[in-house]
């Protein structure tokens, strides 16, 4: 089973980290689809649920290390929202490991690659998204 992951990467640190993983040719499985946002603070709980709704198996949010945020406090807000989203998932019966928040700086290419590999393995053990692939029709 090939788990599908969507990753929201902040433009300043983690997107650059993903770039560095590429520049250094660090191989990782092709399960992730990266969506660039200006800051991890931009990611709403609704995006996370919408992803699970359409059948995505895992959502990864990556941002700058605390204190490094280009917009001073965006990553702190992301932390609160991920906490809230996990509570929702718990009640929904969706396994908590399907949502991950990672701080990745622009020089941590290796970390980006290893997070993806780890996440794919986790999702394989957790199994596919119970809501099924792509059936849900939603606005």
């Amino acid at each position, binding site marked *: 089973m090939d788990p599908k992951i969507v990753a929201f990467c902040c433009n300043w640190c983690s997107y650059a980290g993903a770039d560095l993983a590429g520049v*250094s040719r660090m191989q990782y499985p092709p399960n992730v689809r990266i969506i660039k946002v200006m800051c991890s603070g931009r990611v709403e709980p609704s995006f996370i649920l919408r992803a699970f709704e359409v059948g995505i198996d895992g959502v990864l949010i990556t941002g700058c290390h605390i204190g490094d945020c280009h917009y001073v406090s965006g990553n702190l807000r992301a932390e609160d929202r991920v906490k809230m989203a996990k509570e929702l998932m718990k009640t929904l019966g969706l396994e908590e490991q399907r949502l991950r928040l990672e701080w990745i700086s622009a*020089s941590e290419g290796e970390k980006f690659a290893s997070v993806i590999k780890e996440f794919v393995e986790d999702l394989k053990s957790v199994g596919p998204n119970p809501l099924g692939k792509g059936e849900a029709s939603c606005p």
Partner: protein
Amino acid sequence: MVDDVLVIGGGVAGIQASIDLAGRGLKVYLVERFPSIGGKMAQLDKTFPTGDCSICILAPKMMECFSHENIDVLTHAEVKGVSGNAGDFRVKILKKPRYVDEEKCTGCGDCVSACPYINLPDEFDMALRSRGNIFIPFLQAVPRVVMVDREHCVKCGNCQVICDAGAIDLYQKPEEIEIHVGAIIVACGFDSFDPSGIKEYGYGRYKNVITALEYERLVCASGPTGGHLDRPSDKKTPNSIAFIQCVGSRDVNHNPYCSSVCCMHATKEAILAKEHYPSMENYIFYTDMRAFGKGFQEYVDRAKNEYEVRYIRSKPGEITEDKETKNPVIWYDDTVTRQVKRLEVGLVVLCTALVPSKGIKELADVLGVELDKNRFFKIADPLYAPLDSSREGILVCGYCQGPKDIPEAVTQAKGAAARAAEVLACLGA
């Protein structure tokens, strides 16, 4: 009267001065000797006191500077002659051949892997890794263009075959251009002092005695060991590191001045070592702990309390080596307990002095400016005009003006930009 400006030196100071000048609409020529801009800051892993990753905060500035329509970046080039005076300088610049067409090359790196002769020391990685005859200066180089080391290249042609863009031209000629500028800003930075002259510390004799810049490359994620601190002798991670301060600094026989940044970068490097390897023991041998900048003293206090870095007030007399384990052994007089002690560690990092960059004398002669006795640029009025060299219209900023850290270099770079704009305005008015 011309109001273009020449900036010499593409480190963080040169880049910042160019961005500020271009930001106010002036035309800037940035000349950098190395094939890529970025300077020494690009070689650092993290910066104190925030622990920011150095290239993360430098790369956006490098890109902004390189792609700015008002800035012409001339890499692998040197200033050969300057005539005229403030408001009307004629500058001869020698663009040394890269043997690669900058327009065509996309920095894809196929040629680099195609070159069979990978046996030359990689300058950027402090010779901790070898490179081929055709190479990219470093991963995040700007411009991201390869360069041929023509001296060693045997013209086997492998790279030319593989390069679809046809960018490699092994018979490229050096090119001399002349530009006409109103003011010149010098930001040629520094070199790291070679401590092999201090025989008692064994640099070059003992494998596990390295310099701070080499340490930075070892722990850098894009460095030769991918960020793993493998000590040179057995490629293993040491369990203890000793940082030795004032190696070649505050030393009448080498450099009498204090290089101002070593106490702090040693603290940062010790904290980093502790973060990556929690069981690591860190020692810093100092004479005067100089943490005078913003947030510095608090950073040192955290190093002492949170990261258990042990500060020893002593300048070691000698370093020997345990023959089997290749562990450096430090002999020192612990001035606080007044006992001569012996400390065996896994790795010694010499925090060497930072000295004016090679060729500063020739550059000063070309510019017609004077150097002071430490070979930094001579400042006529150090208090009220700290950035004016001894010649009108030529400003200096960054480490070549005197020992300082990155924020002070950036501040002086912006200051030099303002002074240049002021000089041009006054001449033009």
